[in-house]
């Protein structure tokens, strides 16, 4: 049997690069010189990798405060990402946004966002733009379980439903809204059940199984492109770290944490690749080594990039203010 290994290895590489980026960001942050705070995506890589694998270049993506993984999976440049994290001029936002506002129009990435749940409304609007112009683009919004308790979630999904928009809502349910366990912030077991309130499909998928995520996302994207309207995809997952670097996550049950770490999406997918004969140990090690080397260089690039000129403080407030 001949299997095209390339897409599978691409998925693996994507996840490994995200993990490596986050580990490098973590270390760099603790070392100092990186302002603000960072929300790491480690543990949730299968979601970004699986969803982005089925998108076209012209599609739109909007994300949350935990957005590094989405930008990388979308084709973002780690050099410019680290420069942004360091607040430097070569960053995606010239250092004006930082980790929580990282954005890349060239990849249809309409931004990470500091307001929990804001991506849901913005993604809905991008989906509207696609439909309004008669384009076949879709828009994917990423958000956590906590944000689905916000009123904006309801308003956006209801609007997408009645306008039959090509919008895909991906809930990365890592079971915590900051320190608040899911059962303490909603009565539902599955966020996906909320889709019933809007009259479109809600699907639960193992967010640590990249192939399952990819398959589920592919169905939703295909339906959206065909004019079938929105889908809510709930990806069950776990963040390996606290809400942000510095949050020791003492509110979590250590046994539950350990159990989830055993379901780490990267080794799990490595096992699948080896089992199917789609990769050798050596190949996987090479992917890891390449990612680590790439991120070593990216951290250095970011650290070496100059700070923005002080005049940047007052430019870009309005379009046209750059004399």
């Amino acid at each position, binding site marked *: 049997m001949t299997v095209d290994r390339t897409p599978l290895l691409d998925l693996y590489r994507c996840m490994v690069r995200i993990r490596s980026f986050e580990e490098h960001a973590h270390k760099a942050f603790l070392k100092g010189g990186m302002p603000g705070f960072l929300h790491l995506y480690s543990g949730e890589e299968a979601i970004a990798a699986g969803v982005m694998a089925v998108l076209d270049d012209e599609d739109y993506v909007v994300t949350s405060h935990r957005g590094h993984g989405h930008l990388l999976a979308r084709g973002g440049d780690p050099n410019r990402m680290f420069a942004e994290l360091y607040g430097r001029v070569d960053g995606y936002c010239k250092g004006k*946004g930082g980790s929580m506002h990282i954005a890349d129009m060239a990849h249809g990435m309409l931004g990470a966002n500091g307001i929990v749940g804001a991506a849901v409304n913005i993604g809905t609007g991008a989906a509207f733009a696609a439909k309004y112009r008669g384009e076949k683009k879709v828009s994917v919004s990423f958000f956590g379980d906590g944000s689905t308790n916000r009123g904006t979630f309801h308003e956006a999904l209801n609007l997408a439903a009645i306008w039959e928009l090509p919008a895909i809502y991906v809930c990365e349910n890592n079971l915590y809204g900051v320190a608040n366990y899911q059962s303490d912030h909603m009565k539902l077991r599955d966020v996906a059940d909320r889709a019933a309130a809007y009259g479109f499909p809600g699907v639960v998928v193992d967010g640590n199984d990249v192939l399952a995520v990819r398959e589920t996302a592919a169905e939703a994207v295909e339906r959206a492109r065909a004019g079938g309207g929105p889908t809510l995809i709930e990806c069950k997952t776990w963040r390996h770290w606290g809400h942000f670097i510095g949050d020791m996550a003492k509110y979590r049950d250590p046994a539950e944490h350990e159990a989830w770490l055993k379901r780490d999406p990267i080794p799990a997918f490595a096992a699948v690749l080896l089992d199917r004969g789609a990769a050798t140990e050596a190949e996987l090690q090479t992917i890891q080594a390449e990612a680590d080397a790439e991120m070593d260089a990216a951290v250095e690039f970011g650290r070496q990039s100059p700070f923005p000129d002080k005049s940047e403080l007052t430019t870009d407030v309005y379009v*046209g203010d750059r004399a």
Partner: protein
Amino acid sequence: MRTLNYMQALAEALILEMRRDPNIYIAGEDVGKFGGSFGVTGPVFKEFGPERVLDTPISETAIIGHAVGAAAAGLRPVVEILFMDFLPIASDELYNQAAKIHYMFGGQMSCPIVVRTAIGAGIGAAAHHSQSLEALVCHIPGLKTIAPATPADAKGLLISAIRDDNPVVFLEHKMLYASKGEVPEGDYTIPIGKADVKREGADVTLICYSAMVRQCLAAAEDLAKDDISAEVLDLRTLIPLDKEAILASVAKTGRVVVVHEACLTGGFGGEVAAIIADEGFGSLRAPIKRVAGPDTPVPFSPALESEFIVSAEKIKTAVRTLF
């Protein structure tokens, strides 16, 4: 020249712009089939239909929030928030998203949306349908705020607002909708950020905007009988503010009364007064006076509501204290 009312002038601006640019669409509560709660969008719907004049659910955060995403994806939404009292419901979408996207993403994205909304007391609509909340909007960098007083200004400024690449909050006073005035035919713009002398005078400057222009003109008419020559300066645009026009008029008259319907404390008049104190102090022959609404909610009873609204009488009383 032909005469139109304020409402017709606004509708004409919308129609002309939508003929010119297919990326412009209208969305809001009952803007379509119902024709707009104040009737502005009725003629627009008639020409462009439901594809470009979209009824939304009662979902203010989705109305402005989706517009942010649609604008980021290249459309030019003109959305309606029925009463300005409802605008704070969508504070995140306006203040944190629309206003900041250009800056926080380092100039990569712009947000060319117009939010049309009705302000002001006078129709017995009480505390939740009568406020003038422009000061809340003016405090947020990244937004522009326009408050026209005449049909001709309404048309020319709405066309400018739609063509502006920044988010614009466009304030329509509900007591002005039926007011009539000469309106030029066809396509013309009035520059954003330019005040207009509505009546020339030599002894005192009445600085005002929106419906208060009428009260100031009435006061000036009466004051003329007492040999006080009052200049009426209609700001038209609050952000960006035409400081030069303010300072030029104060330099000419040496006396100033700043008038607005909104509550006094934290009102936009305080900003105008501060600018004059900072940069025009040398011209002053008397203290700067502010005439504004009391620091109360807008009351229901006609006896109380008419007391809330700044009258020509109150303006005249303030002017007389300066001589």
